[in-house]
């Protein structure tokens, strides 16, 4: 039974990949080779380091910290996957007579595929230790693998439990954006501490704490190294086994709660009963200046996006996450002036512009799904539909900048009105290039997006890859303007280069639109097929 489930999972993933075409499959293979190649390289480095006889002291000091790092990555991976993709929905198997404990086993087995890189790393370190005579060499053949297996099992089951817990929290309407944002900020916190120098000062003091054999990573390190100080390896293995048993109980408890959880009830709309006349007036604003059907489409976009949890999360992240990421630099920049601190608002605005790509212009029809066919069925040129979506995206981009400017003002970061105007101008010019690229990716690499899942990713892998690669190119004209201002120390030169960038941006946007319209005409069948594609038997995005 378990084999049948795993086979169905494998087949569904295979079919999913083949469906995106041969080039898509090749792209996935290249990405996988690069990703696992990188981790294999890291595993080889870990193997070399742990095998070095002369590094005994350093290995004893740093292995527990390294295992703590592995633990942190492993537990943050569910969080990362909550924002980027792969998640499993075993509730689809509840209709079959499969014992619940078997489903939990399947969950654990499937989770192994989501952390193969860490298993590579641990294997590399374990082989290195077995080769190192300073730690007993091959005499540790029972001890080292046992510690690795227990540590891996502990992490797997704890991660499964946390994943289920997060999924349930994120499904609760009203609080999910706040929870998701909190989780993101927790993810960013270590970087913030490092950049501010706070963590650097503390790491030295924290190392002995990490090595405490009563922590799972400390116990694993004790057992792997065969240390006789503090507790014996057998006792360390027992402590680790205890942690693993606790993780099993927690993981299974959360998994069972997840199976019984009524996601639909949690997602029931509370707002549906409310009428919001003020918001209604705001939605109607585009019709004051735009003709129909353009204004009808812009209105529709504004309403839909505001009601889409995943969009709201990214919008909120655009200024809060952006501020948190770039704030350390501006704080440091108060002491030593840098390019980022001098143009902080523009940098955060451009970052927000990039972030919004995944839920707006990078995959314009994503949230529409099969309903996107209306744009091809109604007597409206597809260029109008794309333009309407671009206008709606631009409105949100400018709202984002306004929010960033308001946050900066509240934080008393000393942002002038000139800098605010400059941020609007620079972002508008960069947006011309990015909207053009976004229109092309929207029709060439469309992908249906689930509006409810705040946790999943944006466009197709290729669309995101294209945007990621072209983003620096799109920013180049704006960057040249800043470079000119720096080189000539002259505002007039800056605005002259910006004017040229804007003219070029308009031309590129227009050409990209022509090309996108032509692609939409020729590819409408495959666009709609991609947008109508449902979720597989177990893989949920």
């Amino acid at each position, binding site marked *: 039974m378990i084999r049948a489930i795993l086979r169905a999972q494998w087949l569904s993933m295979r079919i999913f990949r083949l469906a995106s075409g041969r080039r898509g499959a090749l792209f996935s293979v290249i990405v996988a080779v690069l990703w696992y190649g990188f981790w294999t390289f890291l595993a080889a480095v870990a193997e070399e380091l742990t095998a070095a006889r002369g590094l005994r002291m350093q290995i004893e000091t740093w292995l527990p910290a390294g295992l703590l790092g592995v633990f942190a990555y492993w537990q943050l991976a569910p969080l990362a996957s909550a924002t980027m993709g792969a998640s499993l929905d075993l509730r689809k198997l509840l209709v079959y007579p499969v014992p619940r404990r078997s489903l939990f086993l399947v969950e654990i087995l499937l989770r192994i595929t989501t952390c193969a890189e860490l298993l590579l790393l641990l294997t590399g370190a374990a082989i290195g230790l077995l080769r190192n005579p300073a730690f007993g060499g091959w005499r540790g053949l029972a001890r080292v693998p046992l510690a690795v297996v227990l540590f891996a099992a502990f992490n797997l089951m704890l991660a499964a439990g946390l994943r289920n817990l997060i999924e349930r929290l994120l499904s609760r309407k009203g609080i999910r954006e706040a929870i998701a944002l909190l989780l993101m900020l927790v993810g960013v916190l270590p970087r913030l501490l490092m950049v501010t120098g706070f963590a650097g000062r503390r790491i030295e003091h924290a190392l002995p704490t990490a090595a405490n054999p009563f922590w799972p990573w400390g116990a694993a390190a004790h057992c792997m190294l065969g240390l006789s100080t503090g507790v014996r390896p057998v006792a360390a293995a027992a402590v680790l086994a205890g942690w693993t048993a606790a993780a099993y109980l927690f993981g299974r408890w959360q998994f069972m709660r997840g199976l019984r959880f009524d996601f639909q009830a949690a997602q029931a709309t509370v707002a549906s009963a409310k009428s919001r006349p003020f918001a209604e007036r705001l939605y109607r604003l585009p019709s004051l200046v735009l003709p129909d059907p353009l204004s009808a489409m812009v209105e529709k976009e504004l309403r839909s996006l505001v009601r889409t949890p995943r969009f709201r999360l990214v919008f909120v992240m655009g200024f809060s996450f952006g501020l948190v990421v770039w704030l350390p630099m501006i704080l440091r920049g108060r002491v030593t002036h840098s390019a980022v601190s001098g143009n902080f608002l523009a940098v955060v605005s451009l970052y927000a512009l990039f972030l919004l790509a995944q839920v707006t212009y990078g995959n314009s029809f994503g949230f529409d*799904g099969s309903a996107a066919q209306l744009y091809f*069925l109604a007597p409206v040129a597809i260029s109008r539909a794309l333009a309407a979506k671009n206008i709606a995206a631009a409105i949100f981009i400018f709202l984002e900048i306004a929010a960033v400017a308001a946050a900066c003002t509240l934080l008393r970061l000393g942002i002038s009105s000139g800098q605010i105007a400059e941020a609007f101008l620079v972002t508008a010019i960069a947006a011309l290039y990015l909207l053009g690229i976004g229109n092309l990716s929207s029709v060439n690499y469309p992908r249906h997006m689930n509006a409810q899942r705040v946790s999943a990713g944006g466009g197709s892998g290729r669309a995101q890859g294209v945007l990621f690669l072209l983003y620096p190119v799109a920013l180049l004209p704006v960057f040249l303007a800043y470079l000119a201002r720096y080189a000539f120390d002259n505002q007039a030169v800056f605005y002259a280069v910006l004017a040229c960038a804007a003219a070029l941006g308009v031309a590129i946007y227009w050409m990209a639109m022509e090309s996108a319209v032509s692609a939409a005409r020729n590819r409408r069948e495959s666009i709609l097929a991609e947008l109508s594609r449902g979720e597989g038997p177990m893989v949920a995005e």
Partner: protein
Amino acid sequence: MPDTPAIAVHDLRKLYGDKAAVDSLNLVVPRGCFFGFLGPNGAGKSTTIRMLTGLVPPSSGSIELLGMRLPDRELEIQQRIGLVPDESLLFDRLTGAEFLEFVGRMYGLARPTAVERAQSLLDLFELREKRKLIAEYSKGMRKRLAMAASLIHHPDLFLMDEPFEGVDAVGARLMKDILLDQVRRGATIFLTSHVLEVVERLCDRVAIIDKGKIVREGSMDELRGGTESLEDVFVRLVGAGREFHELEWLK
């Protein structure tokens, strides 16, 4: 009423690789006709409708709707078509009223007219929960809303793929009455359905498609030949050779 037929399809083909989903299809549907387009699953019905709407380009052949050639006069044709497709064309994050208003404006109605018609249609189809998002609609409510959306611009030709699927008896009765009324005013309806009793009661003419080819076409009386029901004719033409008795373990 103009002389040209509502639908004129000549030698229409749609190939997926070397497999023909629709093969040499010839079809003429007169104006003011309630036309039933039947076939088993995978016969090519939905592909045909998608080609008629312009969503799927044919591999070869020609399509004329309301006397205009597709795709040359695509926008003019789209202006006069009402569609209920098999896949949802509803935007889940809008309310029913917002969606109907949006569709009306997409088809060129002035906003006050679109709002007014949207309200009338919501009342007619009993979709009065004003603030409820479409995402929360049941399957039957979604079909009723899709039907309402197809009516809002008062089209001359309706293309409908399983419009009654998931709709309760009361809703289905209402939809049938509205469609019959549309035919009486001169509109043409091209409908696919697996509920043969409905087709038998509503349609003037019927075509049966199997494996991409039309296997029989004619008026309802011609098809039934006076003795058989539509179901008998349909099963005889496309359903033979399914011997479940051979499966011993199923007994």
